[in-house]
């Protein structure tokens, strides 16, 4: 669905964040066709028509993707509304979404055969094409059209590595921000499968974090890939048992540690960096 430029719905478009990022997306090539906020149907934001609900927006516009700019406690209802209305890809940006809500969104998305990205994610960027979410997709320091696929749980670490890649003369086919929560709709494995099939991608950079099984699970897919993978895992020095920033960054009982993730990725044939600045060096040496 994101392989070709999507028509985008912005849920929560009338809020300050929704309005600001809609303006940024429109100015940078994103096809934002509609917005929605309950009770605000009939208004316009940055020239984009606003509807009171997703079904009304779908009646008037072709919509491939919905991006949700509502606060954490309302994120599930908004995502459920989009998925039930038939939107095929939904991006939830909010941090602090209750994990039971995430499980419900994910189960619904699976049943509806829809894609969920996030929660607690920075969105997606296709340099030179468009972006959806809260990454500065317009920044020429961070993004340049190219052939490296970058997938990251974290927006800030993703920004750093993208900056290094562009400074090193590389560009990205796409940046996918998956989100830092223990459960997210789109996993590293999903992203690797997508990049493996993507004709615009030659190599993949995977930026993981301590906590959860997602990096180990992705490592199982790497041996079957034709494209090389460079990886970095943040939190190699995370104190055990302490809850670090993202809820996902929890280390317990030796599982989900940076060491176990780095070993699984290296054993699978990925090139694993120990410091962020090594990522671009490893990409150059591919």
């Amino acid at each position, binding site marked *: 669905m994101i392989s070709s430029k999507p028509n985008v719905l912005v849920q929560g478009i009338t809020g300050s964040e929704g309005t600001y990022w809609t303006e940024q997306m429109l100015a940078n090539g994103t096809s934002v066709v509609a917005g929605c906020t309950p009770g605000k149907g009939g208004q316009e934001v940055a020239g984009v028509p606003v509807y009171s609900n997703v079904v009304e927006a779908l009646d008037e516009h072709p919509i491939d993707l919905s991006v949700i700019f509502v606060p954490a406690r309302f994120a599930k209802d908004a995502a459920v509304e989009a998925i039930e209305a038939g939107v095929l890809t939904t991006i939830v940006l909010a941090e602090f979404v209750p994990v039971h809500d995430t499980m*419900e969104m994910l189960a619904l998305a699976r049943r509806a055969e829809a894609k969920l990205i996030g929660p607690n994610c*920075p969105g997606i960027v296709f340099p030179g094409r468009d972006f959806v979410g809260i*990454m500065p997709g317009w920044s020429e320091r961070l993004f340049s059209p190219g052939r490296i696929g970058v997938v990251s749980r974290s927006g800030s670490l*993703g920004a750093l590595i993208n900056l290094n890649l562009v400074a090193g003369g590389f560009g990205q086919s796409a940046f996918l921000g998956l989100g830092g929560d223990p459960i997210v709709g789109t996993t590293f494995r999903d992203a690797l499968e997508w990049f493996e099939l993507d004709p615009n991608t030659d190599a993949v950079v995977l930026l993981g974090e301590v906590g959860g099984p997602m990096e180990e699970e992705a490592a199982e897919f790497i041996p079957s890939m034709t494209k090389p993978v460079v990886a970095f895992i943040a939190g190699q020095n995370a104190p055990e048992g302490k809850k670090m920033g993202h809820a996902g960054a929890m280390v317990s009982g030796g599982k989900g540690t940076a060491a176990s993730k780095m070993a699984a990725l290296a054993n699978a044939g990925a090139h694993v960096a120990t410091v*962020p600045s090594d990522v671009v060096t490893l990409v150059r040496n591919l």
Partner: protein
Amino acid sequence: MFVEEHDAKQLIASGGIPIPPGQAVRSADAAYGAAGEIGGPVMVKAQVPSGKRGKGGGIVKCGTPDDAREAAARLLGSELGEFSVDRVLVEGCADIARELYAAVTIDPAAGGPLLMLSTEGGMDIEEVHANSPDKVQMLPIDIETGLGAGQAMDLAVGTDLDPQVHVALAAMLLTLYGMFRQYDAQLLEINPLAVTTDGDLIALDCKLVIDDNALFRQEAAGPERHIGTALELEAKQQDFLFVELDGDVGVLANGAGLTMSTMDAVTAHGGSPANFLEVGGMAYKRATPALGLVLKNPNVKSLLVNLCGAYARTDVIAEGLIAGFKELEPDIDVSFCIHGTGEARAQQLVREELGIDPHDSMDDAVREAIANAAARSGASA
């Protein structure tokens, strides 16, 4: 949030899961009185929001009320793990025939709830599972349909328990799953779940961890006991995620991913970070108090500011930091690396207001901060 045993038991009892008669008390004399009322031998159990109490000596079996008073006097005010004990649960003893393990948790790999049941419950359940995984039944649950009565019955019948216990066990599993959902639990565990000599089920211990992100709709959870250093508690009050570490390089970065990576780089270059502090999401607008927290740590000998803005605007963070520096006037060397959203203005502000040239390379900034910390330590030694 970890709900202490007594409070968790009150919740499951209100849902219909049997628990032993018991009272939570805050003095040795009250423990004596409670033991007398309950009658017979009692357990005196330290109430702290963490596991491993049994192995830590926090659970004492007492034959008489005098023993209970003595045990409570010893436990109250003592330290158990990271917590001081200010409450003990005095609880009647059950006649135990079997000890089971029952829990509902979240399986991050499947992205859904997981029901676990074993007939070999008790303190060593983890070893039981490690040595013979087949002794712990695991059932992934579809959150949309929930746990079915038939599924619960199949699990119960799958045990080697007396058939007369099967129906009660299945009913209890259904209740347990319902409460896991009702309380936004990350974990709801009964261990041990005793089968008494009369064939009744009773929850001897209960562990409930409620998702912090759901506390806005979980009023039953009650107040949370925070642990940590004085500085960590101060940070918590200001809604910052802050962990004090042993090193001497103060680290200030935006976002959990970049912050952890910065700490990794400090370690990789031979230094030692003094803290983890997340200034990400909306918190990037509060750089001034964040700086105050990092500088309050007496171990900090130099400061490393590493910003790479995506959603977070580095110029807004820089403004906040500059305000903090002017207010606190710290006697400390600071190394900056600033990139991403707002970088041109942020770099200019730091140059003009603080007279510091930000590094273009993060590794250079990291190395300088480590060298500065070492020089400062050497000078003070």
